[in-house]
């Protein structure tokens, strides 16, 4: 039999204005097992909490009901108060008489009646509460960063600098990500490689950082502090220890057909390749789909020319298993496919390109060695049209409903750079809105217009028509002039919407992290916990969470690192004690519960059971309390009721039901 104390909070007038708190106290005192009932203006205050402690001491209370605001607000507060008063924190239940009562009802009688019922339900539940002990789990002091772009690199460096081991898993042959593909960065116009490469080197040479390139996360199990991750290290066919990165193999490779992914397929590469000159590690990989030796068994030229004998055609994919305490997702983005936008003639003309492709064309290491050329005939374009919002801000299934955020600024950058380097080239930008919130952003855009003479037209392009003479006829509208425009152009650049890397879905599923309808990872709270995933121990860095430019990405990467460091700094974590528990006397061993457990927390044992004196060996379910997150899916599949959830037991919930319906 519990001795229960009921504490009713006024919350100033938030509750007391609509609920007759005195009446609630009066009714509470009449409930069976209630030995103490009082009200107080602010139960959550220091003074309010000490009243609870005093009552516990004086009346020897074993259970507490607080009628106050939502448990999401102050349950933790009152549990701590109970603990200080010497009661198990899980002997506290909250009756939510503010959010669920006083704030939504106007009639005092009605609201008071409801508050009394909510109080009764909480009292009924506390009668069946049992003290629960939070378990402890060890924290593995190592973090995993998925994705080796600027977000992943920055997060890794920050974590490593704090003294913790970090592994980066990158699926391409080199770290660097999208930023390594960029030529210049806005709004300062400094060269992307010049600021990124030192970071890459820093990461690679950091004693606490291990980089797995050409690798993918295969499987994730475990929970916050104790993740076990299988990483597939894809066969590189090059021995990383022996290779000196001299590059002879790439010069000699006769297979020159495959499209160069790093240059967005604008030119080709060899079958053995490093994606770009500053790649880290500077060790090539062999693309098994185009390697003649691997496909036909004949060739072997790279092996012949490699002076250190680093080529190894017999390499196989390797799975390594590592333990981590925290996981950071930094999987970045890609541009959307333009197949559904026939009107822009992207698939018809080589001179209609995406901005990321232009980025490669402008880059000295790109397919045109940095010369602005038409890909169709190599001529210098004299008339360039930029089209904004291609696939962004689109409510149909062709594009994305969100603003890709970076396009306005990089288009201003591109336009400015072109006008600067090729003053005789005309640049026209069709835009819907120019969005420049950011430090020095609007100034930058205005410079493009005022100092560089970039022609901005408010309006959209309806159609791009490739002409027989190789030019492109652009049909657009100038909304301010209210005129339709037909413009001959040599090149059209599409500010293509960005989308999360398609692999993120797979990764999110493995991590049980939630993603939104656009495949962006969801934050634990959109404002207050923007770098954490709702899944404990999983953190978000960079564009995988939402469109961002470089400075924002780096800022978020640092923030994610701080959260990881905060987690790894702990030796042990308290586990949620509201876990499932199986009654082995009742368990049939039927395995239904294990089939629905999302955490693999249920296993089966052949156990010697003493059933009221009768000994038998039976197959019974056993719950791993550290893995169980307490969803309760198992409890409902269990026909015998052997599986129950602590803190939300069948009898507790039924008691609440009874109290409400009586």
């Amino acid at each position, binding site marked *: 039999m519990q001795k229960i104390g009921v504490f009713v909070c006024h919350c100033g007038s938030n509750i007391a204005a609509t609920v007759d708190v005195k009446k609630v106290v009066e009714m509470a005192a009449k409930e069976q097992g209630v030995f103490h009932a009082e009200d107080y203006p602010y139960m959550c205050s220091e003074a309010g909490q000490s009243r609870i402690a005093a009552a516990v001491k004086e009346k020897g209370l074993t259970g507490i009901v607080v009628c106050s605001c939502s448990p999401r607000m102050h349950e933790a507060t009152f549990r701590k108060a109970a603990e200080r008063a010497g009661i198990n924190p899980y002997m506290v239940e909250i009756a939510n008489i503010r959010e669920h009562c006083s704030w939504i009802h106007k009639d005092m009688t009605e609201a008071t009646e409801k508050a009394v019922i909510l109080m009764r339900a909480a009292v009924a539940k506390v009668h069946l509460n049992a003290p629960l002990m939070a378990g402890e789990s060890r924290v593995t002091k190592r973090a995993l960063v998925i994705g080796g772009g600027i977000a992943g690199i920055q997060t890794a460096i920050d974590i490593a600098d704090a003294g913790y081991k970090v592994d980066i898993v990158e699926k391409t042959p080199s770290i660097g990500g999208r930023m390594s593909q960029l030529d210049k960065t806005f709004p300062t116009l400094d060269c992307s490689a010049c600021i990124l490469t030192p970071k890459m080197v820093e990461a690679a040479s950091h004693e606490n950082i291990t980089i797995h390139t050409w690798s993918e996360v295969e499987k994730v199990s475990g929970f916050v502090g104790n993740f076990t991750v299988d990483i597939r290290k894809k066969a590189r066919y090059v021995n990383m220890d022996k290779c000196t990165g001299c590059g002879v193999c790439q010069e000699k490779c006769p297979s020159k057909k495959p499209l160069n992914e790093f240059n967005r397929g604008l030119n080709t590469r060899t079958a053995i390749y490093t994606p770009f000159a500053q790649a880290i590690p500077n060790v090539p990989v062999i693309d098994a789909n185009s390697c003649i030796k691997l496909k036909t068994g004949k060739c072997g030229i790279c092996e012949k020319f490699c002076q250190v004998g680093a080529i190894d055609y017999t390499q196989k994919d390797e799975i390594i298993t590592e333990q981590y305490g925290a996981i950071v997702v930094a999987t970045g983005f890609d541009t959307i496919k333009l197949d559904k936008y026939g009107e822009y003639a992207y698939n018809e003309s080589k001179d209609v390109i995406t901005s990321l492709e232009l980025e490669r064309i402008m880059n000295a290491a790109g397919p045109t060695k940095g010369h602005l050329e038409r890909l169709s005939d190599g001529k210098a374009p004299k008339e360039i049209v930029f089209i904004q919002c291609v696939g962004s801000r*689109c409510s149909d299934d062709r594009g994305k409903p969100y603003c890709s955020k970076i396009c306005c600024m990089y288009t201003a950058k591109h336009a400015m750079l072109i006008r600067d380097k090729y003053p005789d080239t005309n640049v026209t930008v069709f835009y819907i809105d120019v969005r420049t919130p950011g430090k020095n952003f609007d100034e930058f855009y205005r410079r493009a217009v005022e100092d560089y003479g970039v022609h901005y037209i408010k309006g959209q*392009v*309806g159609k791009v028509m490739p002409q027989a003479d190789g030019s492109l006829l652009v049909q657009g509208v100038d909304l301010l002039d*209210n005129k339709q425009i037909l413009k001959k152009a040599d090149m059209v650049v599409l500010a293509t919407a960005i989308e999360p890397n398609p692999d993120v879905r797979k990764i999110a599923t493995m991590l049980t992290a939630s993603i939104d309808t656009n495949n962006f990872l969801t934050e634990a709270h959109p404002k207050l916990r923007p770098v954490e995933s709702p899944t404990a121990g999983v953190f978000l860095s960079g564009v995988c969470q939402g469109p961002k430019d470089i400075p924002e990405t780096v800022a978020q990467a640092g923030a994610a690192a701080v959260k990881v460091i905060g987690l790894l700094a702990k030796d042990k974590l308290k586990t949620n004690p509201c876990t499932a528990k199986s009654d082995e006397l009742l368990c049939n061993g039927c395995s239904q519960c294990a089939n629905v457990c999302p955490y693999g927390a249920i296993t089966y044992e052949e156990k010697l059971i003493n059933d009221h004196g009768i000994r038998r060996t039976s197959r019974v379910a056993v719950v791993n309390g550290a893995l169980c997150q307490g969803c309760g899916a198992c409890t409902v599949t269990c026909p015998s009721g052997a599986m129950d959830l602590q803190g939300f037991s069948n009898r507790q919930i039924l008691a609440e039901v009874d109290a409400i319906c009586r």
Partner: protein
Amino acid sequence: MSKQSELIKEISGVNPLKCMKCGKCSASCPSFNEMDIKPHQFVSYVQNEDIEALTQSKSLWKCLSCFACVERCPRGVKPGKLIDAARQVLIRQRGQEGLTANEIPALLDDETPQQLLMSAFRKYRR
């Protein structure tokens, strides 16, 4: 007046509030230069409940119903449908009956743009 704009919304199934004023409709329109009220302006006429001006406009009869704007509108506003609905409102006002399928062949001549015929098929296919 407002009743008419409601009618247009109902017939067209279009929510003008979704328009973000990008102008892609006008950029796509093959009859743009013939029109006094441009396709992107249709939305604001309906929003401002100035249906009178809309039904009096030349544009109403210059629209080919090629539906380029309907297809390309990134917000699903479909100005072409609005124009179409305005026509219907007018026709209903005048109490005219529509053509029957049998009457059409006799009315065809070389002047009628092919596009118009195609779009009519597109529009009324079931």
